[in-house]
């Protein structure tokens, strides 16, 4: 039999679990100010996340999908993107979003049951959270198509989960992006689980990065708990895409340290030991160790940072809790650019039966 094609999947790591270097530092990481900026952001995410879970538990927020353990992936990607690029998140990517300018108040507003949370003041062109799994990958490809047709030097980046890679839509997006050499990067956050289904039950593929092969585009694995490696690999892919080099697929290996959402109880389907082991390689630990080893971080600074983060979170929570219930008109006023005739009557009816006075 004649060999007609050959493919290799590589894995990238810079920082070991103990903060030790296992490869050369990428350029950006030579600047300890930049590293600190990333570490602070990762910490902010974690503090926010814990608070959000707590708000749900106390009945002050709806179902909430924690991002505990995803901080390196989120901040690495945020830092690799440019402001003018466009993010297509799933529902869990609070880290990247905060880095890009989405506010904690906006996040809470949306997960508190109000569409206004999707109306980001910054970044205006990013997509909103996307609950129907995998659909966002085509939006990113479409936006990338717009950039290509309009000759704008921008990229789109779509997130997807390990479970999400089973949806046909995901492959369609990869294939479209490959066939038209679109400036888009797809990042699979492989956190081991799709609700209760482990990745091994999701697919027979040994790696998720190899799904790129189906679309004839580059695929690479990265240690998703290693913020240096993530930023490096994603940055490279974005730069190539921006220069017309086409799309890429990146699999970031991490772990969902939390339940799937606050509506889930992971103890029903996964063993405690696995979670315990995952805590040993979690993302904040290793960059903190790196910073401590480098002599630029200590307990006092850590304490100060945690307090600073908590203050910001509290301010956002107050702002969120102070928001009034949306008025019933909100159901109608953004449906179309201008309200069709037949909906005027329904809008009036909704006002009449509004469950609480809503300002009309």
């Amino acid at each position: 039999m004649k060999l007609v094609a050959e493919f290799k999947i590589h894995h990238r790591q810079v920082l070991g679990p103990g903060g030790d270097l296992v490869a050369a530092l990428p350029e950006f990481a030579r600047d300890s100010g930049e590293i600190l900026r990333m570490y602070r952001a990762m910490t902010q995410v974690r503090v926010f996340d814990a608070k959000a879970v707590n708000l749900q538990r106390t009945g002050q927020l709806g179902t909430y999908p924690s991002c505990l353990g995803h901080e390196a992936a989120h901040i690495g990607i945020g830092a690799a993107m440019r402001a003018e690029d466009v993010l297509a998140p799933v529902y869990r990517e609070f880290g990247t979003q905060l880095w890009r300018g989405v506010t904690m108040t906006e996040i809470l507003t949306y997960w508190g049951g109000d569409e206004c949370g999707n109306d980001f003041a910054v970044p205006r062109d990013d997509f909103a959270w996307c609950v129907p799994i995998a659909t966002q990958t085509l939006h990113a490809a479409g936006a990338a198509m717009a950039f290509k047709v309009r000759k704008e030097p921008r990229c789109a980046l779509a997130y997807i989960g390990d479970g999400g890679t089973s949806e046909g839509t995901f492959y369609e997006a990869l294939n479209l992006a490959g066939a038209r050499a679109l400036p888009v990067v797809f990042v699979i956050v492989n956190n081991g689980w799709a609700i209760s289904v482990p990745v091994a039950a999701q697919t027979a593929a040994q790696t998720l990065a190899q799904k790129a092969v189906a679309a004839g585009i580059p695929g690479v694995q990265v240690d998703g708990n290693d913020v240096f490696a993530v930023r490096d690999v994603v940055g490279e892919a974005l730069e190539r895409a921006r220069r017309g080099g086409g799309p890429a697929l990146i699999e970031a290996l991490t772990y969902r340290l939390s339940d799937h959402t606050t509506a889930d109880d992971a103890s029903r389907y996964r063993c405690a030991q696995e979670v315990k082991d995952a805590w040993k390689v979690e993302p904040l630990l290793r960059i903190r160790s790196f910073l401590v080893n480098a002599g630029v971080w200590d307990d006092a600074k850590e304490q100060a940072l945690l307090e600073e983060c908590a203050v910001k979170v509290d301010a956002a929570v107050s702002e969120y809790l102070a928001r009034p219930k949306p008025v019933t008109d909100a159901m109608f006023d953004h449906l179309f650019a201008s309200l069709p005739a037949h909906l005027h009557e329904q809008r009036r009816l909704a006002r009449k039966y509004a469950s609480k006075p809503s300002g009309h």
Partner: protein
Amino acid sequence: MVEAIALAHGWEMQHDVNVVVIGQDVGANGGVFRATAGLQERFGVDRVQDTPLAEATIAGMSVGMATHGLKPVAEIQFMGFLYPALDQIVNHMSRMRNRTRGRLSCPVVIRMPHGGGIHAPEHHSESTETMLCHIPGIRVVCPSSPARAYGLLLAAIRDPDPVMFLEPVRLYRAMRQEVNDDGRALPLDVCFILREGSDVTIVTWGAMTIETLRAATLLGERGISAEVIDLATLSPIDIETILASVAKTGRLVIVHEAARNVGVGAEIAALVAERGLYDLQAPIQRVAGFDTIMPLFKLEHDYIPGVQRIIDAVELTCAD
């Protein structure tokens, strides 16, 4: 109601080895609403299978399983995630028997949570039964109590043709009722009269039966006797029962959670306007979801018709 659904699964799997449960998280997790809790332990991983996260897969593999000897009972995690499965449902499942002139057929049940009202996230509160009811060759069923969920689900699994089984999320936990686990099915294709009355007929289904019955009670106190009909099988519609009721009451109000425009309520109104026009003493009223997107949960109860809206519609009808 969720326990009744699990019971019906268990009974039928026990009595028919070809019944196989598939879906996302239906195995170890027992379903995100626990409707398949305990089944995998009891019947094994071949008969209670977690599928990959792919709805077209769930529907498409059901077609292949059903044409080749199994009776899949599939769960779609929420109705808002049904859409990737529609191609397989519309183009194959519903017409396999017809297009092969009976050679192959699809005894499949697709279960899915239906409607809102439980503070769920975006896309988790849809009630787009219209899209299914319009499709020839499938049945659409929506129970309104644990006992009816049990009996209708058994009937759906035993039916030789595809059945879409819509489970109102508001009833999953809100409604508790002892269910007799005796394997007795309830009939498909017929309405259930939940309350007899003489002044007005109210047709509804699923979770809206709760608000409707509450409204009927309050109306009764005000001297209006409402007959409440649970449609139960949304397609095909048992119009004879409805026409008989309207012949008696002379008035018709239809209540549903789904958007009004081309809702299933429209079909009921149209049938009565065609076949029962001369019985009508007042215009038909539809009390329905607005023709807007189901809002996030802060406004969901401003979207779902409430008791007062139903009462007002009935009183308006009766004033005529």
